[in-house]
């Protein structure tokens, strides 16, 4: 048990959750006492547009979240003065207004917002110094305001009507709302907007089942948040689950148990307790067990492609961990405890580069790892600019947009060009040889053999695609992931369904209609969905235009074991076959992978 807490990233999480216990417990008690649960939930979720802005313009997310919380609280207070309005409907309306603003900003103003998802969920495993500082500030303010205003907040909580006599009502309420907002903002990075009540409401509500004395509630809630946070963090590392959700479930279960014990009869509650203990024990016993030390070179790869290339070169001389799993959307990645542990132990980390794995730096600094990081996208010969937001828009218009955007970003899907892959293989070989000079010969041999296969595959694909007249080489893909492939083989991407490199952007009816016009005009025969992206939109476009969606491509990730796209070579063959079949109406393929 104590071993877990010797890991540096777990220690940081522990410090954060223990610090947060103070504001979350104190303010949580007031939230429960005063019925502010909806407000605290809403103000956390309403941070979304602030986070998108912070991400897009490039300032501190905490500042963005707090700014959005301020706008939220101000609007709610302002609208509350309109006759016949009710607080809860205003809270809901302002909340959805904030969310819609966030989606519009993410889809139409800033092309990408890949880190926003992380903040909606948050993680105790990626806590930085600023988060701890913010938690400390919130803790100090929570103590100060509770000491100063506590008795008056209490008076108002018990006597809604007579409260006007006790001091200045607006000022007091305002102070409470500000501390709630600050507490919520401080907890966002640790647990995320949608689970915020797990720290702020559930523990305080649990304590209130046991005692109605306010002093005890305050102290008890702080202690319980600390306890549940520590337990949840420990359990999440042992079971390799995200800590936020673990804490939410653990505190929910404890609430249910306390409810059973305090409200049901003694006999029934004992039975319930026994069942829960047995179930809980089973869960904990079923998990655990750590990897062994093999003495091999420990290598971590971020994406599935980087992982496959590293495996091809490293063979059985390296102990390889690939962080992203096949067929999962890298845009939705949330660090798991095992990922951070693997990075902490690693000698060498291969990054694929760009926004697909931009979380790598964070994990490396959190884990206290001294591994050498190799960004494979740095040394590739063919580089394309990313964020081609409206490829199918009119030329002049799109150029203007480009000028505004920070255009330095690289399209991270470089591995769809074999020439780049060959260079990356060379780089992997060099790095491995440098780290383990004894095996340099072994690595060179494997890399050379693999490079030959890559070059051969490149020739085969080019030859096969040459059979299609250039005028007919037109495709529509799900999101903009195939720029390198189409450039290499002279194919024109006439449009993409999701209008940005990130899969999180939401399309507009106008863009989709324009795309359908293009498909009809250019006589595009197939829209290619991707394995890791839900196909609803591609299907909608296909239904309208009569294009086929039978041919699925591997875009952001390789396929799971046993699928044609399990390895990079397999992925390229499968993609080529499907693109060929799509362009030729199912008449011709190259490698026969789709049976």
């Amino acid at each position, binding site marked *: 048990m104590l071993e877990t807490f010797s890991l540096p990233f777990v220690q940081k999480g522990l410090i954060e959750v223990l610090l947060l216990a103070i504001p979350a417990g104190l303010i949580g008690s007031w939230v429960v006492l005063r019925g502010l649960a909806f407000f605290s939930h809403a103000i956390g979720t309403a941070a979304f547009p602030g986070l998108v802005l912070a991400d897009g313009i490039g300032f501190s997310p905490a500042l963005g979240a707090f700014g959005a919380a301020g706008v939220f609280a101000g609007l709610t207070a302002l609208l509350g003065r309109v*006759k016949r309005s009710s607080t*809860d409907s205003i809270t809901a309306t302002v909340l*959805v207004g904030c969310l819609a603003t966030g*989606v519009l900003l993410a889809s139409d103003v800033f092309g990408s917002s890949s880190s926003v998802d992380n903040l909606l969920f948050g993680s105790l495993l990626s806590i930085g110094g600023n988060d701890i500082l913010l938690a400390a500030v919130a803790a100090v303010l929570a103590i100060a305001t509770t000491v100063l205003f506590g008795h008056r907040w209490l008076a108002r909580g018990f006597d809604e009507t007579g409260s006007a006599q006790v001091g200045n009502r607006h000022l007091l309420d305002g102070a409470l709302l500000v501390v709630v907002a600050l507490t919520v903002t401080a907890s966002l990075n640790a647990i995320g907007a949608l689970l915020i009540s797990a720290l702020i409401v*559930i523990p305080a509500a649990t304590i209130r089942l046991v005692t109605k004395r306010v002093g005890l509630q305050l102290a008890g809630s702080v202690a319980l948040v600390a306890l549940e946070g520590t337990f949840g963090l420990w359990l999440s590392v042992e079971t390799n*689950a995200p800590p936020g959700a673990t804490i939410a479930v653990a505190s929910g279960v404890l609430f249910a148990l306390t409810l059973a014990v305090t409200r049901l009869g003694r006999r029934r509650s004992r039975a319930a307790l026994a069942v829960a203990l047995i179930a809980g024990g089973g869960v904990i016993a079923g998990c655990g067990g750590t990897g062994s030390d093999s003495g091999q070179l420990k290598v971590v790869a971020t994406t599935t492609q980087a992982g496959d290339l590293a495996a091809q070169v490293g063979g059985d001389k390296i102990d390889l961990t690939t962080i992203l799993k096949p067929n999962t959307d890298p845009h939705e990645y949330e660090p798991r405890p095992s990922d951070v542990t693997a990075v902490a132990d690693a000698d060498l980390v291969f990054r694929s580069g760009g926004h697909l794995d931009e979380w790598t730096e964070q994990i490396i600094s959190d884990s206290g790892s001294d591994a050498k990081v190799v960004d494979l996208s740095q040394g590739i010969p063919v580089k394309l600019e990313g964020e081609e937001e409206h490829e199918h828009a009119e030329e002049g218009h799109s150029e203007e947009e480009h000028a505004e955007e920070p255009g330095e970003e690289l399209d991270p899907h470089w591995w769809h060009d074999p020439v780049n892959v060959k260079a990356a293989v060379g780089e992997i070989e060099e790095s491995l040889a440098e780290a383990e000079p004894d095996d340099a010969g072994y690595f060179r041999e494997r890399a050379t053999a693999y490079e030959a296969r890559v070059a051969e595959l490149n020739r085969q694909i080019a030859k096969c695609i040459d059979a299609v007249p250039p005028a007919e080489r037109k495709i529509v893909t799900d999101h903009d992931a195939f720029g390198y492939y189409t450039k290499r083989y002279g194919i024109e991407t006439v449009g993409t369904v999701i209008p940005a490199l990130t899969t999180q952007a939401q399309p507009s009816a106008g863009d989709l*209609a324009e795309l359908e016009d293009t498909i009809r005009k250019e006589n595009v025969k197939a829209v290619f969905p991707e394995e890791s992206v839900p196909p609803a939109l591609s299907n909608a476009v296909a239904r309208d235009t009569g294009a086929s969606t039978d041919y699925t491509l591997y875009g952001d990730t390789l396929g799971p074991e046993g699928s044609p796209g399990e390895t990079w070579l397999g992925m390229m063959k499968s993609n080529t076959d499907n693109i060929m079949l799509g362009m030729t109406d199912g008449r011709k393929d190259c490698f026969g992978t789709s049976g």
Partner: protein
Amino acid sequence: MIDWLLEPLRFGASLRALIEVTLIGVAGGVVGCWVILYRVSYSAESLAHGLLPGLVAATLLGLPILLGGAVGIVAAAILIALVNRFARESADTAIAVVITGLFGFGVLLALSPDTPPGTAELLFGDLLGVSDTELLTSAGILLAVIASVWLMHDRLLAAGFDAGAGPSLGLSPSVMSGVVLVLVALTVLVGVQGLGNLLVAAVLVTPAAAARLLTDRFRPMLILAVATALLAGVAGVYLSYYLKVAAGASVVAVLVLAYLAAAAAATLLPRAIRPTSLNT
């Protein structure tokens, strides 16, 4: 002008989006009035998050997603009612406890490698991606919602207006709030595929809240709420078509603007036409 209005209809995706916002608008406008009357906005906003474990479990078990969602959301509604009753806590606290616990459970379930990708899509939905089958299902649920509201209208109204008088008339207000929660759950199911988890609350609360600002009588409020929801829905789709902005978010943005306009009107209009209590 006519051409301007007809042009988006040439495209299947925007046509289906218009049908979908019509369905969501009617359901949301009608049920929203009860949400406002029973003051269950928080439930309306949060029940959608309670969908997650049901949806994930259904995809893992290979069951129809809608079925999983329905089971999950009804379970959430029952749990909220139980906690509310046994813990004697405010409804707010009960909702926060139950929904957060369930959502955490859903996140853990979604970690299974068998879970298909697209949790983010569940959260935001895709108005332009709805299929004909989904439209039919939504229409079916909408009919069920309208029928139950029509049948129970008087009882809902009696219990909603006077929680004290309810039991003497042989009606328990807590049972009737349970009925409202189930209606909310059904409406969430209509809207979740189009607007997604986070935004579906908009159509359930905002139109009715805006209508409430303008009238004290229930029937006009109902008509006004449905009209607002429909107009905002259609306007949102046209905005998304002509200005090329995200579809679902446009609909919600128009709804919120409508609410702000109603708030301004309610403040600026002469006091005389605004009596203070809700009458039938």
